[in-house]
């Protein structure tokens, strides 16, 4: 049933990979998880291991069980002395095991195998026993199984006890067994711990156990509380159930951004606004300004005098119980918020990349569609049917696509490239054109604007022109892009989505870039109090954008639904376009990020906006839309979205805020930084102030030598570049390693089938002898099983191997010794040579390994071993079959 390749000696690829770290680990594990490894001569050569593998260091009885090898080949054992020094250990956990091939079958009362991996190995062995169990062996097998299970359980518990409590629980949780068994293991571990076998100071143990229990309970209750606080859980479930995880991603992102804004609001309100309000509640609104209602849209007029904008914040130090410097507070709050945002984005992006991109392989499409694409969270009947339909269509397409691609002629290809070129040119041109027109529009407005105080309502309304045009462009131009996209025929869905995304991003970036240029260059020169003007402009953009979003989902989706269902059924119900919608909220968030400096309370507006948007989109989605026809690979899309959010948008916003505070002169009449050369110089003044106090001299030193020193940044940049380079090299190494490991698997598969064939031939050739010796074989097996029961990996599978093997092997040996002694000798001679050559290679590899990872193995040793192998093979086929019998159970 299960078999392992013994291709260590015979397989060149194995040698190649032997120098690589991961392979070492897996070969070590091999010994634990794979019961057959013990009798694999190739393994004996492997046992020279680096001495640092004791990281789990639990209950290591690795090499002792080698003593119990029941079936050791005497001739090959010659090559095994190093294994006596093998500082083996028992709890190798490697989730990437390639050797344990089968999942566990749940057998009750079977607690065994440490951690998932070993467990898998054990259950596999156990399970492989049952289906083909010969009645003659039944009794013995049961015995063996029982002792084996107890054995495994004991070992598992020993290993678990050695771990820390959190690790223990994690491991127990991840055991692929039923709850009952996990609970049993858990009680055993606890009992073992408290029985004093592990700790000598029982009172201390009791105390620490109680502590850890209460800590754990506390942790769980926190987790519970956090779950209760989770927003919109029910809605999320409903959306996931109806529309699948790709649409859900949009809502998750929306919620995430909402939380960002809530945090931002709390920080800004708490550190900037509240102190100001406490200090001075009165608003110094000039008497001829009153609230007209239009301010809600334009953000100008009355709002200009409120705490909404930068201009109303004072530059004084509030004297109270503590001196509170408004300048510093403003500066640090904004910068800390931006830095925190950046960190959160980087971390979530990195983890998302790690999870979703590291190993993603677009090659296996059918297999993926078949086995991984089904969204288990979908619970809606209609959605399920639709999804089935979509999958069917996609599969059909992928079948026909292949044929189609082969038939494509050069002229067709040329035409296609022409279309690509044209649409890219057009879309880039459109984006650039939008940017240019916004630029001229801003200038046009600029000329007409006079002093803000005397604005009439009409004038105020005119300010809405720019945001209106911007939002209109943001809504209409993407429709053109989608239109182009229909004409282009990309070979894969993903390319199509990426192209569309890229164009939309380009559009938004160019518009925002032009606006920022205008704000940074023209506005400061024109207005005496310019920051609030930028704040107002951003406020208007946020509000108008919101209105367009609402209109878009109400009318856009609603109308196309009506058209699709009533007037033109051919068009069908609109799909929810995840990419476009995500881009919209990313854009909205960028506006809020840019605005945080100019209008510290902009997050309030953003919170309201996102909150309403969530419900609006939910309603619009459930009433007007159908799930996207091609769900694509949602997880990768999510990564792309986070990346987009970070890279052009957040980084852009951050650089604009940074530019404003480093380079631009704050307005002289208003705001917390009036009278300073730049916002950043507030830190310089603060440091000077701190330096006067001799006890905090180090702060000044740090400021001078770290924050203001070029050499520091130069050096740290260098170091970071070097680190990046090293990591990049590591990645390259890993990539090679993956290729090697894959090749190795393929080779092993070939070995396996070859050896299986051999075995079958052999079995056919001597069936009657086998029958005769069955009884004796059983006896031997049992003996070896008993012997093996004392040690960790002497598993019952051993026994099973023996069943098949010993019959043949002993028979062969008897015959061989009786009949063809010379042949036997020559064989073992060849074997020994092979082993020696291998060991030599091994040792050399060892040396090489110490110097570099992934260094190719010493070639001549490999060549020698290959030659020896060749010889062994050539001389006598008998050897290989015997050898196989010993190492490859079937």
């Amino acid at each position: 049933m299960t078999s392992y390749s013994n291709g260590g000696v015979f397989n060149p690829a194995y040698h190649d990979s032997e120098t690589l770290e991961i392979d070492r680990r897996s070969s070590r594990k091999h010994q634990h998880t794979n019961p057959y490894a013990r009798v694999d001569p190739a393994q004996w050569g492997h046992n020279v291991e680096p001495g640092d593998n004791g990281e789990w260091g639990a209950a290591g009885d690795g090499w002792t069980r080698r003593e119990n090898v029941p079936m050791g080949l005497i001739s090959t054992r010659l090559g095994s002395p190093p294994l006596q020094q093998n500082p083996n250990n028992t709890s190798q956990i490697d989730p990437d095991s390639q050797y344990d091939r089968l999942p566990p079958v749940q057998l009750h009362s079977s607690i065994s195998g440490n951690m998932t991996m070993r467990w898998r190995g054990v259950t596999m062995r156990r399970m492989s026993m049952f289906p083909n169990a010969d009645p003659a062996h039944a009794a013995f097998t049961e015995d063996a199984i029982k002792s084996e299970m107890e054995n495994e359980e004991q070992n598992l518990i020993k290993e678990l006890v050695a771990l820390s409590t959190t690790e223990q629980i994690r491991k127990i949780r991840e055991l692929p067994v039923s709850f009952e068994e996990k609970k049993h293991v858990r009680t055993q571990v606890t009992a073992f711990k408290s029985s004093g076998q592990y700790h000598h100071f029982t009172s201390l143990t009791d105390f620490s156990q109680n502590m850890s229990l209460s800590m754990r309970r506390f942790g769980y209750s926190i987790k519970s509380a956090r779950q209760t606080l989770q927003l919109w859980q029910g809605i999320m479930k409903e959306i996931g159930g109806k529309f699948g995880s790709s649409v859900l991603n949009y809502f998750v992102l929306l919620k995430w951004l909402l939380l960002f804004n809530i945090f931002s609001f709390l920080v800004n309100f708490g550190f900037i606004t509240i102190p100001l309000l406490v200090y001075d509640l009165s608003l110094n609104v000039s008497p001829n300004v009153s609230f007209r209602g239009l301010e809600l849209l334009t953000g100008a007029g009355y709002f200009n005098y409120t705490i909404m904008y930068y201009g109303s914040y004072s530059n004084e130090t509030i004297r109270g119980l503590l001196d509170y410097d408004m300048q510093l507070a403003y500066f640090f709050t904004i910068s800390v918020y931006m830095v925190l945002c950046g960190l959160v984005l980087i971390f979530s992006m990195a983890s998302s990349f790690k999870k979703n991109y590291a190993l993603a392989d677009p090659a296996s499409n059918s297999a993926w569609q078949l086995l991984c694409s089904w969204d288990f969270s979908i619970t809606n009947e209609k959605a399920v049917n639709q999804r089935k339909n979509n999958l069917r269509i996609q599969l059909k397409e992928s079948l026909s696509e292949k044929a189609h691609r082969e038939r494509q002629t050069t002229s067709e290809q040329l035409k296609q490239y022409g279309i690509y070129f044209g649409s890219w040119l057009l879309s880039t041109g459109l984006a650039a054109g939008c940017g240019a027109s916004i630029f001229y529009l801003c200038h046009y407005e600029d000329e007409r604007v006079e002093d803000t105080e005397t604005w009439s309502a009409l004038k105020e309304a005119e300010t809405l022109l720019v945001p209106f045009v911007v939002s209109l462009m943001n809504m209409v131009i993407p429709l053109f892009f989608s239109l182009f996209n229909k004409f282009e025929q990309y070979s894969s869905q993903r390319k199509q989505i990426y192209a569309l995304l890229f164009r939309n991003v380009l559009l938004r970036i160019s518009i925002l870039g032009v606006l920022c240029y205008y704000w940074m260059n023209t506005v400061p020169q024109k207005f005496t109090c310019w920051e609030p003007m930028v704040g107002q402009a951003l406020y208007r953009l946020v509000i108008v954008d919101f209105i367009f979003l609402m209109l878009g989902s109400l009318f856009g989706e609603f109308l196309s639904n009506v058209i699709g269902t009533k007037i033109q059924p051919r068009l069908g119900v609109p799909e929810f376009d995840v990419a476009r919608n995500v881009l919209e909220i990313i854009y909205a968030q960028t506006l809020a990020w840019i605005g945080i400096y100019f209008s510290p309370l902009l997050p309030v507006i953003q919170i309201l906006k996102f909150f309403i948007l969530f419900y609006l989109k939910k309603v619009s989605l459930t009433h007007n839309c159908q799930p996207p026809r091609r769900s694509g690979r949602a997880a990768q899309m999510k990564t792309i979205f986070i990346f987009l959010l970070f890279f052009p948008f957040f980084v852009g916003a951050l650089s604009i805020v940074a530019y404003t505070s480093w380079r631009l002169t704050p307005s002289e009449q208003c705001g917390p930084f009036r009278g300073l050369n730049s916002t950043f110089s507030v830190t310089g003044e603060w440091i000077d102030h701190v330096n006067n106090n001799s006890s905090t001299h180090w702060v000044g030193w740090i400021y001078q030598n770290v924050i203001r020193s070029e050499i520091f940044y130069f050096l740290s940049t260098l170091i970071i570049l070097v680190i990046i380079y090293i990591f990049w090299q590591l990645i390259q190494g890993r990539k090679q390693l993956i290729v090697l490991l894959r090749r190795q698997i393929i080779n092993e598969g070939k070995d396996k089938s070859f050896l299986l064939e051999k075995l079958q031939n052999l079995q056919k050739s001597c069936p009657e002898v086998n029958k005769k010796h069955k009884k004796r074989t059983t006896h031997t097996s049992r003996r070896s099983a008993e012997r093996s029961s004392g040690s960790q990996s002497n598993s019952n599978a051993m026994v099973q191997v023996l069943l098949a093997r010993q019959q043949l092997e002993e028979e062969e040996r008897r015959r061989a010794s009786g009949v063809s002694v010379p042949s036997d000798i020559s064989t073992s001679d060849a074997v020994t040579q092979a082993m020696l050559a291998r060991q030599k290679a091994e040792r050399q590899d060892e040396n090489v390994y110490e110097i570099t990872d992934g260094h190719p193995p010493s070639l001549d040793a490999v060549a020698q071993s290959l030659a020896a192998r060749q010889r062994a093979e050539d001389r006598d086929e008998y050897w290989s079959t015997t050898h196989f019998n010993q190492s490859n159970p079937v």
Partner: protein
Amino acid sequence: MGNKQTIFTDEQLDAYQDCTFFTRKEILRLHSRYHELAPHLVPMDYTNEPDCKLPLALIVDMPELKENPFRNRIVESFSEDGMGNLSFNEFVDMFSVLSEMAPRELKAIYAFKIYDYNVDNYLCKEDLEKTLNKLTKEELTPEEVELVCEKAIEEADLDGDNKLSYADFENMITRAPDFLSTFHIRI
């Protein structure tokens, strides 16, 4: 808080929290869901661990599973007898593995079991064909089904035995990042 104690003891809840990916609240919610399935069969009081099992037919009727094309296989894979009768503990197990917190590896093991219809520990062509038919409402022609399955095996089979062993499957799963989010049932 009062009625929590009547369902499970603190020790039981601790055990559940230690051995599954659920919190106390979720365990209680799961219990109420389990109880809802057969109010006359499932006792409210679980402090003495009553031996009570619900048949497959009742469990696949849950809204979370009702429309799932693999519902029977899911339940069977988690039942100890292989027939789909689930005790409460197995019920918790099932949703624990399908929860968001469960690691990829654990999910992969059970996903493999779910797809392995004939329980021979390999995903052979017949298994894949069954899976495909469930996923497409049996509307593909037999030739197409065969073609797709062959292609899938060809893509994922590393050791060339024309069926997918667990290693092949796991290898494929690690390359399909979506699996974590799609093999997930919200309870």
